[in-house]
């Protein structure tokens, strides 16, 4: 029997708490101070982030080899239940704080230049600080409730940043959409929290995991067995709630990591400033879903994991298709992000815990790099704007040939693209290979229909290569199409390479996308990452775990290893080749590209409109809810309130009827009585003398008579 209080009792003072508070406090300080100091907000908050990054990296290096640290305390008490908070620093957390801080810092630097001319700079940097704070909160806290709180805060800051240019209607709508989609996921996650709390009476993840070991499946019921303050507790729920808990927690990840069916918010979120897209919608916030899945990984049972894997694969494939035909450079990258997140989620689903996290890290670098490069292009093209020259600087139809004018950007973009496509020598290859390997092994064991899931994943590999090189070819090769669109030759000469403040972050991120950073090795499992962050032990009650990731036999993996690598490399190269033939400078498609108003053909339109998912939601769900709301408001006003008013009116009518009755029937009778009694009264009016004394006298007579009657 395990004692709950032992698991959640506050720990003794640990000097580590200071580091943690510093880590959380500095971004918060950046948020608050940026709102007040205004003028020097950018440099000040960038400096703060630099300090924070330094701390994070220092911590990562100095505590890497130590044991995981866990610090617990009491937040508040609810009845006799203690709501604890806990920090937990393991290697994953250390890695994540370093990653979040580093990318956040680079984005701060980039933003200093990018947002230079915006008058709301302080607000922008404040939001970035708040975001960093919330993101670090998710990483550092090891308590589902507090993670949920920071989870929602991250969603909130994302709302603020997407809607940063709130004067643009599209931006504010996109912000709303992002928040509500996230909220849907969060509602699911809250359900997961409810289930776990009902079973374990705590949110502390370590405690939940420990208690999960001691829970059992008995007669289809999921029974949690432990002692609380010495009292034996047996919480029992229907066994299906165990899967439900896992799926509900996954719902949170679906919202935040933009998985099917809630992924529609992410492309719209590109309305926010580009550095924000790099930080939040590529590297960190959207990865939080994967991080959460990793944290609760051991609590998911087989069914839940299956759902996770399938959703991940579907998302990866759908988004990869959608990315094929976008015209907006950021949208391509957004769909690409969704697709890659799908990979990570699928990885978790198939049990490739460390491979999924590995992809999270590599993706953070190359995708942030891609976004920053796109940001440089947008920023530099924006400078062409003048009174007579107006165009959409994010539209790839106006670009082309930029390789000549922006060589450094091109190089960075290319490296990141190669990493994204998963070609050997770049980080993306390592992690993607690891995921595919695990997924294939998983399908081998499960067999049957599960090969379709793997099929989707492999299809996405080739699609990824196609869409990203489409972008490379269309943006950087051939001539500058804007010249011919606006009929202004020589415009190309005005395009300049971005300055160093813009370039350095992009370069650093590109460097981070080369596989040598993770180890001079072509095998993923030999990288330091996979060495240090290993798969955890499975905890869910035995009978519900039809299989677990430790069951993935070494032999299967070994035998598959070579094949998977060959297939994925050849798919990626194949994609590159296809893309080359379609979009190389002299290809037909590339030549007429600038005139394409919208992709032709059913497939093209499905891709362009992202499977019409948005339209479906708009037409079916949002409309339905609004109409329902209107109908209910009508019901409320006319029927319910009408009923009440009708009741009142009926009463008034009734009162009138009664009045009539009263006046003519009863009053008639009364009048008769009155006239009769009036006559009698006339006769007796002498008694009514108007003299008070007479009244007293008669009253007294009556009293005496009464007394006499009573006495006798």
């Amino acid at each position, binding site marked *: 029997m395990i004692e709950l209080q032992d698991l959640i009792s506050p720990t003794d003072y640990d000097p580590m708490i200071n580091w943690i508070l510093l880590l959380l406090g500095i971004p918060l300080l950046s948020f608050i101070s940026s709102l007040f100091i205004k003028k020097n907000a950018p440099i000040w908050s960038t400096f703060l982030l630099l300090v924070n990054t330094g701390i994070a990296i220092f911590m990562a290096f100095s505590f890497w080899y130590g044991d995981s640290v866990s610090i617990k305390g009491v937040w508040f008490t609810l009845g006799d239940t203690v709501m604890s908070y806990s920090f937990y620093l393991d290697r994953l957390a250390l890695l994540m704080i370093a990653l979040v801080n580093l990318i956040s810092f680079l984005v701060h630097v980039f933003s200093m230049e990018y947002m230079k001319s915006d008058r709301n700079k302080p607000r922008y940097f404040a939001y970035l600080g708040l975001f960093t704070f919330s993101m670090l909160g998710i990483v550092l806290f090891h308590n589902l409730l507090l993670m949920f709180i920071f989870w929602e805060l991250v969603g909130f800051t994302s709302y603020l940043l997407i809607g940063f240019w709130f004067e643009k209607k599209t931006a504010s709508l996109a912000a709303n959409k992002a928040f509500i989609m996230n909220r849907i996921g969060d509602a699911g996650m809250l359900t997961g929290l409810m289930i776990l709390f009902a079973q374990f009476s705590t949110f502390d993840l370590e405690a939940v995991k420990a208690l999960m070991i001691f829970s059992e499946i008995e007669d289809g019921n999921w029974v949690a067995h432990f002692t609380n303050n010495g009292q034996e507790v047996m919480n029992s729920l229907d066994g299906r709630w165990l899967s439900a808990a896992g799926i509900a927690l996954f719902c949170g990840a679906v919202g935040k990591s933009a998985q099917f069916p809630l992924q529609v918010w992410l492309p719209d979120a590109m309305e926010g400033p580009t550095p924000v897209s790099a930080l939040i919608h590529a590297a960190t916030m959207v990865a939080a879903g994967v991080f959460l899945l990793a944290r609760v990984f051991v609590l998911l049972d087989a069914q839940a994991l299956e759902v996770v894997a399938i959703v991940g694969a579907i998302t990866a494939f759908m988004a990869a298709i959608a990315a094929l035909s976008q015209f907006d450079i950021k949208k391509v990258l957004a769909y690409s992000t969704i697709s890659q997140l799908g990979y990570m989620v699928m990885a978790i689903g198939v049990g490739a815990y460390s491979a999924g996290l590995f992809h999270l890290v590599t993706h953070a670098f190359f995708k942030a790099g891609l976004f920053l490069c796109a940001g440089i292009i947008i920023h530099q093209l924006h400078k062409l704007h003048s009174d007579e020259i107006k165009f959409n600087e994010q539209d790839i139809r106006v670009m082309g040939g930029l390789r000549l004018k922006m060589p450094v950007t091109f190089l960075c973009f290319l490296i990141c693209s190669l990493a994204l496509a998963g070609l050997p020598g770049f980080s993306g290859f390592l992690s993607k290979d690891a995921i595919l390997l695990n997924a294939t092994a998983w399908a081998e064991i499960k067999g049957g229909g599960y090969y379709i899931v793997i099929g989707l994943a492999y299809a996405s590999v080739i699609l990824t290569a196609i869409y990203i090189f489409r972008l490379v070819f269309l943006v950087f090769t051939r001539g500058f199409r804007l010249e011919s669109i606006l009929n202004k030759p020589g415009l190309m000469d005005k395009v300049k390479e971005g300055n160093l403040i813009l370039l350095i972050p992009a370069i650093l991120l590109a460097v981070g996308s080369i596989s040598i950073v993770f180890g001079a090795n072509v095998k993923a499992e030999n990288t330091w990452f996979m060495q240090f962050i290993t798969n955890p032990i499975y905890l869910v009650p035995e009978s519900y775990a039809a299989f677990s990731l430790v069951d993935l036999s070494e032999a299967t993996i070994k035998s598959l290893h070579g094949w998977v690598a060959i297939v994925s490399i050849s798919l990626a190269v194949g994609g590159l080749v296809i893309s080359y033939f379609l979009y190389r400078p002299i290809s037909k498609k590339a030549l007429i590209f600038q005139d394409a108003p919208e992709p032709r053909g059913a497939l093209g339109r499905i891709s362009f409109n992202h499977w019409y998912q948005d339209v479906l939601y708009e037409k079916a769900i949002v409309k339905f809810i609004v109409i329902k709301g209107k109908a209910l408001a009508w019901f409320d006003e006319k029927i319910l309130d009408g009923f009440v008013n009708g009741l009142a009116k009926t009463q008034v009518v009734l009162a009138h009827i009664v009045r009539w009755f009263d006046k003519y029937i009863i009053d008639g009778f009364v009048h008769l009585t009155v006239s009769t009694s009036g006559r009698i*009264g006339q006769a007796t*009016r002498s008694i*009514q*003398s*108007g*003299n*008070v*004394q007479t009244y*007293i*006298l008669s009253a*007294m007579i009556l009293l005496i008579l009464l007394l006499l009657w009573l006495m006798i």
Partner: protein
Amino acid sequence: MMPVDHLLILGAGLFVIGFIVVTTRKNAIAVLIGIELMLNAANINLVVFSRFDPDFLQGQVFALFVITVAAAETAVALAIVLKVYRHFKTADLDKISELRG
């Protein structure tokens, strides 16, 4: 010590006298005098029984309040009488018969 009964009879007598005065006099002030008598009669009863309640003395306290209220009542009543006199030019109650049916 006078027996309780006798005191009560005294009170009853006083009360009845007051009552007769109230009912038979035409002059408003005479009526007032009658009322005072009745109040005094009540007070006698209160004080008498208060003898047997030494701890709380409720009777005495109540008598005190009756006296006070009587004072207030007289003041107001006389004011009314004056007003009535000015209005009807008489203080005779049988001539003031606004309430006659």
